[in-house]
């Protein structure tokens, strides 16, 4: 039997072993998955597996076991492959059986030839997903995930990302943007903006990138075909994209699902060679004109850029917070212990978080309260078309043209595992691609900003928006954003038709007055303090928090999202009474909509205190919060006079 390290470094040899033992019947496949499942259950075994998220491909050993945390960006057509095939030795005509699973290339020795007509050949099917790292993943999440690898600290890989590996990746996307867009200058500007936004991620030095990238570009361009668009949803993203080949139950996965896959890394250079050769030699073969050049580029890109992973185990992730156990639904004692431990110290954490956010929001505790509720909101069910549990907050009254909104985003970024800041300007609305659309020539789904994983925080900054003319794209983008907020769905553009993809994205809109986008609740900011130096104030805020506390905040926000919730009959009655009473007193201003909102606030309020049922006190508190919020809005209205 193979030794311990083998299953990590040479998993195929293990597969081969199983195959040899049980060759003709298909039991061996099951045995392989079970073997690896067992291996990974061993203590901390998952941490030994190198992750494609942190380590550049060229540091990884080909055909070794790797893991990859990613979002499914696109699904390609299923492919048929030779599950089992036979080779014939041209000298001895000895016949040998091989397996094609977990491989891109049918292997055979120098003297051997594959017998395509053999009766032993078994054709099987597998599905290819195009996966990208979770878009907008916060730096802390990446780093913490990173830290879990004993492997890393040993190798020099840790240093490398910032030197050789990242810039090259960056340059690629840079070039391509230019390629895609007819207005390179505008694109460049935008790109500058993006990369400076990207610098918040913390591990890239944007200045150096900007200077290096064009130089590299000139060097390479003459003898190189235009670079590949790796199709990341968010501009300025980096990290490996991957073709993930799934062998089992691929029907259960959906676009935008976040997965953690364990599989065999395949970077065989043959993959690219086969490609180019084919193109040269096949002028006469009509089979080759099946795919356009673009399609070939997209569907079989060079393995060095887009490695392949042949999945042995894949699991959907509920969240990507590395501080939490991966799967909370499972009734494992360890998980339960973790949850109950954390729940016991919940209220101090909440108080701390509230204090922290109050400071961040310039002393406005009401807004901070609402921000907490917003951050733990999640769509927990859909009633026919109506998504339940979404809580888009419009934080109005933000000071215009100050770095305040940017810093609010920075703080949110520190708290949630994935986030993105969308700066609304007339240009950006007119130029960027929000809705993913299908490119039929290349046969792929071209990503857009709104293709985000579940529970991503989207911070829309409206303070930058000036007057101006929106063109068709702009209108479409704004409509898409509005639909996203109201219905929690994005209609992907398939050219001949649209398809609806449900999503679950927390949208926070920062604006000066009331936002032009719809929202579930508008909170008007009332700053208590006006620090003279915003920059300094905000940065000091973050440094003042202990890292351990920050981690607790992170656990708090991710964990509470996953809790269940119910309302007892008594409270239902009480709420009913209350509503009737309110309507009696003021039928004009209390509508069903308000009840909706108050119920939502009550839900998140209870959850934020760790309570899974609604109590009378929470209900009253929710009402009180709503009343405060509304009073503020009215006050604001009377000040401005012309709003609403």
């Amino acid at each position, binding site marked *: 039997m193979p030794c311990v390290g083998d299953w990590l470094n040479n998993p195929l040899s293990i597969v081969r072993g199983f195959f040899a033992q049980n060759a003709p019947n298909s039991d061996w496949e099951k045995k392989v998955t079970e073997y690896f499942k067992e291996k990974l259950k061993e203590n901390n075994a998952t941490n030994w597996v190198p992750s494609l998220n942190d380590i550049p491909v060229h540091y990884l050993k080909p055909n070794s076991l790797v893991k990859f945390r990613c979002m499914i960006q696109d699904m390609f057509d299923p*492919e*048929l492959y030779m599950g089992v095939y036979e080779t014939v030795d041209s000298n001895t005509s000895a016949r040998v059986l091989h397996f094609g699973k977990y*491989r*891109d*290339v*049918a*292997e*055979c*020795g*120098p003297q051997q*030839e*594959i017998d*395509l*007509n053999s*009766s032993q*050949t078994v*054709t099987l*099917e597998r599905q290819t997903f195009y996966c990208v790292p979770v878009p907008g993943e916060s730096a802390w999440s990446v780093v913490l995930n990173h830290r879990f690898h004993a492997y890393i600290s040993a190798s020099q890989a840790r240093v490398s990302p910032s030197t050789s590996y990242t810039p090259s990746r960056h340059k690629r996307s840079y070039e391509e943007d230019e390629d895609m867009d007819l207005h390179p200058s505008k694109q460049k500007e935008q790109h500058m903006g993006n990369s400076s936004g990207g610098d918040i991620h913390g591990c890239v030095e944007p200045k150096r990138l900007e200077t290096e990238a064009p130089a590299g570009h000139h060097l390479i361009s003459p003898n190189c075909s235009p670079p590949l668009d790796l199709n990341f949803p968010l501009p300025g993203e980096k990290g490996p994209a991957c073709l993930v080949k799934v062998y089992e139950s691929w*029907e259960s996965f*959906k676009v935008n699902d976040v997965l953690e896959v364990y599989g065999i890394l395949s970077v065989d250079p*043959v993959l690219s*060679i*086969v490609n180019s*050769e*084919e193109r040269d030699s*096949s002028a006469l*073969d*009509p*089979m080759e*004109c*099946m795919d356009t050049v673009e399609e070939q580029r997209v569907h079989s890109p060079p393995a060095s850029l887009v490695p392949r992973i042949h999945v042995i185990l894949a699991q959907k992730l509920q969240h990507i917070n590395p501080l939490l156990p991966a799967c909370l639904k499972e009734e494992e004692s360890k998980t339960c212990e973790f949850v109950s431990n954390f729940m016991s110290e919940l209220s101090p954490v909440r108080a701390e978080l509230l204090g922290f956010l109050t400071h961040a929001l310039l002393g406005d505790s009401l807004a901070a309260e609402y921000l907490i509720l917003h951050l733990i909101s999640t769509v927990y*069910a859909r*009633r*026919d*078309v*109506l998504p339940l549990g979404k809580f888009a907050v419009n934080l109005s009254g933000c000071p215009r043209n100050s770095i305040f909104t940017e810093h609010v985003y920075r703080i949110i970024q520190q708290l949630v595992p994935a986030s993105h800041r969308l700066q609304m300007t007339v240009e950006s609305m007119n130029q960027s691609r929000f809705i993913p659309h*299908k490119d*039929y*020539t290349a*046969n792929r789904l071209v990503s857009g900003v709104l293709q985000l994983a579940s529970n991503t925080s989207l911070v829309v900054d409206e303070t930058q928006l000036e007057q101006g003319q929106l063109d068709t794209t702009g209108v479409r983008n704004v*409509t898409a954003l509005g639909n996203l907020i109201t*219905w929690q769905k994005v209609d992907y553009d*398939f*050219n*001949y*038709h649209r*398809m609806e993809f*449900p999503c679950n994205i927390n949208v926070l809109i920062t604006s000066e007055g009331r936002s032009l986008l719809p929202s579930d609740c508008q909170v008007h900011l009332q700053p208590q303090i006006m620090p003279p130096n915003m920059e300094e104030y905000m940065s000091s805020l973050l440094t003042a928090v202990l890292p351990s506390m920050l981690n607790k905040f992170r656990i708090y926000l991710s964990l509470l999202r996953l809790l269940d919730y119910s*309302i007892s009959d008594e409270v239902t009655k009480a*709420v*009913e009474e209350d*509503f*009737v009473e309110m309507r009696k007193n003021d039928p004009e201003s209390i*509508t*069903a909509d308000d*009840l*909706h909102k108050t*119920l939502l606030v009550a*839900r998140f309020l209870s959850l934020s205190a760790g309570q899974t049922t*609604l109590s009378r006190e929470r209900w009253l508190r929710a009402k009180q919060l709503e009343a405060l919020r509304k009073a503020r809005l009215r006050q604001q209205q009377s000040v401005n006079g012309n709003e609403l």
Partner: protein
Amino acid sequence: MSSPASTPSRRRGKRGRGSNPSTPQDARSPPSQKRRADDSTSTGDLQPLPTSPPADVQSPGAADALFSSPPQFRHSAIPLDFDISSPLTYGTPSSRVEGTPRSGVRGTPVRQRPDLGSARKARQVDLHSDGLAEDIVATDQSLGQKLVIWGTDVNVASCKEKFQRFLQRFIDPLDKEDEDIGLDLNEPRYMQRLQEINMVGEPFLNVNCDHLRSFDENLYRQLICYPQEVIPTFDMAANEIFFDRYPDSILEHQIQVRPYNALKTRNMRNLNPEDIDQLITISGMVIRSSQLIPEMQEAFFKCQVCSFTTRVEIDRGRIAEPSVCKNCNTTHSMALIHNRSMFSDKQMIKLQESPEDMPAGQTPHTVVLFAHNDLVDKVQPGDRVNVTGIYRAVPIRVNPRVSSVKSVYKTHIDVIHYRKTDSKRLHGVDEETEQKMFTEERVKILKELSKKADIYERLSLALAPSIYEHEDIKKGILLQLFGGSRKDFTNTGRGNFRAEINILLCGDPGTSKSQLLQYVYNLVPRGQYTSGKGSSAVGLTAYVMKDPETRQLVLQTGALVLSDNGICCIDEFDKMNESTRSVLHEVMEQQTLSIAKAGIICQLNARTSILAAANPIESQWNPKKTTIENIQLPHTLLSRFDLIFLMLDPRDEAYDRRLARHLVSLYYQSEEKMEEEYVDMAILRDYIAYARCYVNPRISEEASQALIEAYVDMRKIGSGRGMVSAYPRQLESLIRLAEAHAKVRFSDKVETIDVEEAKRLHREALKQSATDPRTGIVDISILTTGMSATARKRKEELAQALRKLIQSKGKTPSLKYQQLFDDLRAQSDTAVTKEMFEEALRALADDDFLTVTGKTVRLL
């Protein structure tokens, strides 16, 4: 076996078709067999059979003479009849004996079938160990009838015989298809088809596999499993029958059988390795089609030295260039002569899963199709088609320099038959079959459901359960989803009667109108959702676009046309601009859409129901005003809505209480529990689809009486007070509603209860929308003329008063405007506004009583 005699007879056949009776038992070549031969040669490297000549048979030689005329000769004589080269003996002796060649058959050239033939490449794959027939081996010559094609259980002779029997005998009077116009269903269907071929001259016979299945299960199975072998046999059979019947018929080439509607696979997602090399039918949407690809079938080489020529057939996509001239033995002297080579048309098409078949949250799959010969360019990107063809898998080619192979196959489908699914939309045939298949259990469930007494309530509850109450509105929408029966009065000159029910919802903002619209849009398969603010007339109708690639003008259809046979949901109807709204006039009554743009003049069907939502102009509904005044829509448009509902926020305690309970439950119930409570959305959708397809109720005697009474009653209500409360349009609405209600019950007859419900609903809607706020009386003229009868009466009274006033002034030719106004105000006991005064003046001016010029009023 074959005889040299075949050559002259062929030629005769070609030149003087039919004049010469067949050489009986001209064993060699009924072209039907040659055709067959072509197909099987194409199946790849045939092992030389005892009867088959070497691959380069073309060169004159003894072997050649055995089987066919010398190629050059043949070529010049019958250019179309290429590829006789392969000999093949696939036709068994017995079939040769039976296949009595007729002069007609022989006279008609064979056209190669690349749709079956490209198998030659697929051969290499050989997915299943024993695969399909590679070669056809006559296992035992003496056994004659018992021969089967190697690797299959297909016996050519019996297969042919069975198929001939099928063609001659198949009758199914019940099965009606839209292509069947002009067919006598009680006569053998396919014989009539053959007759049609004789008349029209299109040598393709489409065969519905479903028919074949009901006729002979085993033959059907063979067709599905071994299409490559069975279809040529079918061709042979069809040709024999055809030329037997119509020996004088002249066709471009021999009849090709095109099976369709194979039930093997319906959905692209279900394609799996087992389907390889089988006949499948899938539906989808064409997303891309390539240019025409000329595919070389046969290369023509000429020796540069001695001008000796030879032909090489394509083998697995390659032409083996002869390195040595056979005649003069010079090496590398052969050159390809392009314009004497043989090419066939080919096109690559990408088909994408239809959106309905896609599971939520996944991206659509695509599959590559290859169309050959006349199927090229039959479909355009955007077309919805059902494709029948053979599923193929080809390994990605072995690279000679690298020993390893990609272990992946490329798959495609060789198209045999296309059937456009949406082309029907252009014929106005009332057949919304939607290709929707209901399994028997499903139908049973639906039927059982329909028997329930409270089905109407049940379904209306299932509609948008998250929206609270508004039961009548939901019922109205439910009836809209079912629609009335389509009636055709074209003969009497009135054209089609609209069967679709249009509904307008108006009311306070925040009463979940949009949500209701969204729900409906999500429920129906052909729903469209637009917002009045964001849509232009062009977006609703259609526009002409220049395709950037082909520079071709393309008609792009808008929401209304796209929702043909569906529902078009228009939100913020009031915000729509005037010109956009005007296109709706035609759509809402005539159900068509006329376009005259960029040289394209056409009338498109837009048999769509419209579900619109409008907000009151003052943001809050003003109960003191009429509907028209509240939403400021032209009454011409309003009268086209069958039902107009007000969605107001009722202010009453019990309602509030129920609402609160409902909302609270929404916020904690788990998803599973919610689903249990109601009829699930999928069932509802199927129920509606089924009813729309199969239930077409007619009005019974009692029901028509009830309708008449109802209408008369409605007219009476108003007539007492000098008002009209119903117009024929309302009667039509009633009929539609009653029909829809009968559909809900799956009943073929409209009965009195249906009329009762229609009446009730209609009255409810009227009560809400057509009540005159001044009198509190239902007055339909609010909707038809935009003004209530009382208002009109008051206007007339004022005009009369004014006339009297002027007459009382005696014979003055002109009056001062302001003074007259003051006088009238002084005289009248109610307040007279300037507008009212002006209106009265205008009324009098219309009567030619006076004219108004500037500040003076002149009497005439």
